[in-house]
């Protein structure tokens, strides 16, 4: 290969975009490492503490796009305190100093401040795309800086962030000369929206393909917006209180008919039942439908809508749709690839939920299904075995039985055999979440059969350390392991310290791991950061005479090449 000049090799590398593949390429030889280094455009950093900005810049001087992830996944469920870390500020500062030609920044579970957004908006002249997922720490003032200063902004995508809404005029901060927007998603903002500024912005953005509104955008505004942007592909409806006979509603129906490019629908944050029928005419074009926030819509209306959606590939819905609703999905949505069913009623006194029957129906009716997240009240081994047989192509299988430790509701047995069938049949399984009553046996199956498994989530499961050991020994491709409320302790934690070098991270909370066990691990593996998160009894652990045997509430460990981080809050202890 070395008889090609570098430019040719570089051109070939341009076709390789996946960061995993590029990492592999760079290992082939020194010359390829060098060429790849200078030509890498998009850098992905799965754990912002595994490396630092200086080393990033040293290795990849020419990148344009950066993806950073901060807090561990369980932070989504309140298990990680807000001040734990994951600050983007040092990264933006370093990139600005290094004069990186940054065009795209994608952050997940990071702390972003208004100061960071302001610096970002002023430091990179070609900046085009900002995607923030599950981030926090900023306000609409920060958004105003982005709007005002990023002259070539194409994408502003805010997904499920905690944003302090100052009810300011951030939308009117987009200059009149800004006509380049392709994506605008502000669904997670809680406050009022300047509708006039929004309409003007949409009207002067001919390339706008994705628009997701917050709950403060009412029906008549929605109708006007859709008339301005009939080219829209992805729409997030905000508020949807309507009176079916009103003029606004009729205008909306007319506007919807014109949106022939619409493929993805979401939102309905405050929705009245009748609203959905306005969308029936374009349902056959939809490939993605997210109704998981439409808590007020009755199952029957959901079903009526879905009956029109023959080409759906992705469906996120609440369990108020019921098993019979899922049967309708199974018979209508033959192209379905991804399904998520969320619980409507957290207290458990709900009227309709879904059971194993709904899951079986979907598995039988949707041959292309490869990803599922399913919250339900009950499950059986028999059902899981049928599902495994119907869908051997699962890549992601996440089952959450609402009541922890609940056994097979017909046989009262643990659900080991059911999940065992899933991992045996689904040879491409990369992500798995287990629940219900489970013994060490299920982990034996997982270790034995789940060869491609990269991420495993365990809660209230297992009997002994053997369970965790089976997983650590068996799953060669494991990258992220997160465990809560399960009886795994030091013996499993310390059995194979080198395993953690092949993984991104391990989370264990409310398990049997002790402080001395964690200390021993930290000693054996200096290239790991072993963090103890102790919100309540900060210093008690050290002063207490029994410290060695004291159980650790939350432990988070991850491989890193830059040692202990400097921004540790007082309640986090790095061993």
């Amino acid at each position: 290969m070395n008889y090609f000049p570098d430019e040719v090799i570089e051109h070939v590398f341009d076709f390789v975009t996946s960061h995993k593949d590029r990492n592999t390429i760079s290992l082939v030889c020194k010359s390829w490492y060098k060429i790849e280094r200078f030509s890498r455009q998009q850098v992905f950093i799965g754990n912002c503490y595994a490396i630092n900005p200086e080393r990033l810049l040293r290795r990849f001087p020419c990148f344009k796009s950066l993806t950073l992830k901060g807090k561990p996944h369980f932070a989504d469920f309140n298990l990680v305190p807000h001040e734990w870390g994951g600050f983007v500020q040092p990264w933006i500062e370093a990139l600005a100093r290094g004069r990186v030609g940054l065009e795209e920044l994608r952050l997940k579970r990071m702390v972003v401040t208004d100061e960071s957004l302001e610096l970002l908006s002023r430091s990179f002249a070609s900046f085009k795309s900002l995607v923030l997922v599950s981030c926090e720490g900023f306000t609409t003032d920060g958004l105003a800086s982005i709007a005002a200063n990023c002259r070539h902004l194409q994408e502003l995508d805010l997904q499920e962030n905690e944003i302090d809404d100052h009810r300011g005029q951030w939308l009117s901060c987009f200059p009149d000369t800004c006509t380049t927007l392709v994506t605008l998603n502000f669904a997670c903002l809680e406050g009022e929206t300047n509708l006039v500024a929004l309409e003007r912005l949409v009207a002067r953005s001919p390339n706008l393909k994705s628009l997701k509104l917050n709950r403060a955008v009412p029906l008549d505004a929605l109708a006007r917006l859709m008339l301005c942007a009939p080219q829209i592909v992805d729409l997030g409806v905000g508020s949807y209180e309507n009176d079916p006979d009103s003029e606004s509603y009729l205008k909306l129906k007319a506007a919807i008919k014109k949106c022939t490019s619409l493929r993805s629908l979401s939102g309905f944050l405050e929705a009245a039942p009748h609203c959905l029928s306005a969308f029936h005419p374009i349902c056959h074009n939809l490939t993605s439908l997210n109704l998981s926030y439409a808590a007020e819509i009755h199952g029957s209306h959901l079903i009526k809508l879905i009956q029109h959606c023959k080409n759906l590939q992705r469906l996120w819905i609440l369990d108020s749709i019921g098993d019979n609703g899922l049967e309708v999905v199974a018979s209508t949505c033959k192209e379905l690839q991804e399904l998520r069913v969320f619980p409507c009623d957290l207290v458990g006194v709900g009227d309709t939920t879904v059971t194993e029957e709904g899951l079986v129906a979907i598995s039988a009716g949707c041959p292309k299904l490869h990803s599922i997240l399913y919250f339900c009240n009950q499950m059986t081994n028999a059902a899981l075995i049928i599902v495994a047989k119907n869908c051997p192509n699962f890549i992601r299988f996440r089952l959450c039985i609402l009541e922890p430790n609940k056994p097979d509701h017909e046989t009262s047995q643990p659900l080991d055999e059911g999940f065992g069938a899933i991992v045996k049949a689904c040879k491409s399984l990369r992500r798995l979440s287990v629940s219900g009553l489970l013994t060490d046996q299920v982990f034996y199956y997982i270790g034995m059969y789940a060869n491609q498994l990269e991420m495993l989530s365990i809660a209230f499961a297992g009997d002994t350390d053997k369970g965790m050991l089976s997983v650590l020994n068996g799953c060669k491709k494991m990258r992220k392991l997160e465990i809560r409320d399960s009886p795994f302790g030091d013996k499993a934690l310390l059995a194979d310290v080198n395993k953690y070098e092949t993984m991104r991270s391990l989370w264990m909370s409310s398990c049997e791991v002790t402080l001395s066990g964690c200390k021993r691990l930290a000693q054996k593996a200096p290239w790991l950061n072993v963090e103890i998160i102790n919100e309540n009894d900060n210093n008690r652990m050290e002063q207490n005479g029994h410290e060695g045997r004291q159980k650790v509430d939350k432990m988070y460990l991850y491989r890193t090449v830059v040692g202990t981080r400097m921004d540790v809050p007082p309640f986090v202890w790095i061993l």
Partner: protein
Amino acid sequence: MEVSNSCSSFSSNSCHSESSVNLSLSLTFASTSPQRDTRQNWPPIKPLLRDTLKGRRIISHGDDTSLFVKVYMEGVPIGRKLDLCAFSGYESLLENLSHMFDTSIICGNRDRKNHVLTYQDKDGDWMMVGDIPWDMFLETVRRLKITRPERC
């Protein structure tokens, strides 16, 4: 084969009847984690979804239940929220609403002078308040609207 298991008082490799397994496990787990009884942060759903579901009308706190519905007066863009469980029946509801909106509100018969109370049921249809028994009404009501006198 024997694995030390610091939390279990029974051996891990013998057969048990299902109920004793459940019982043992729940007793076992009670000692491992101080937060076990509160089942904190479970089920694993994101805060935004959790808040959306909490914003739903029906909230149960043990024996007390609240049923919050939105009430709009036609022509007035800002609505109110009302806990219907706080009322014993239609009479107290009407009385309270008349007071809240400072006008006379009736239900049932059409009237040129008074505002008439209507509700949206779980099928999405707008109906006159007062036709069905109060308990049935509570189960089906989604929102209330006080209409202008001539409308009905």
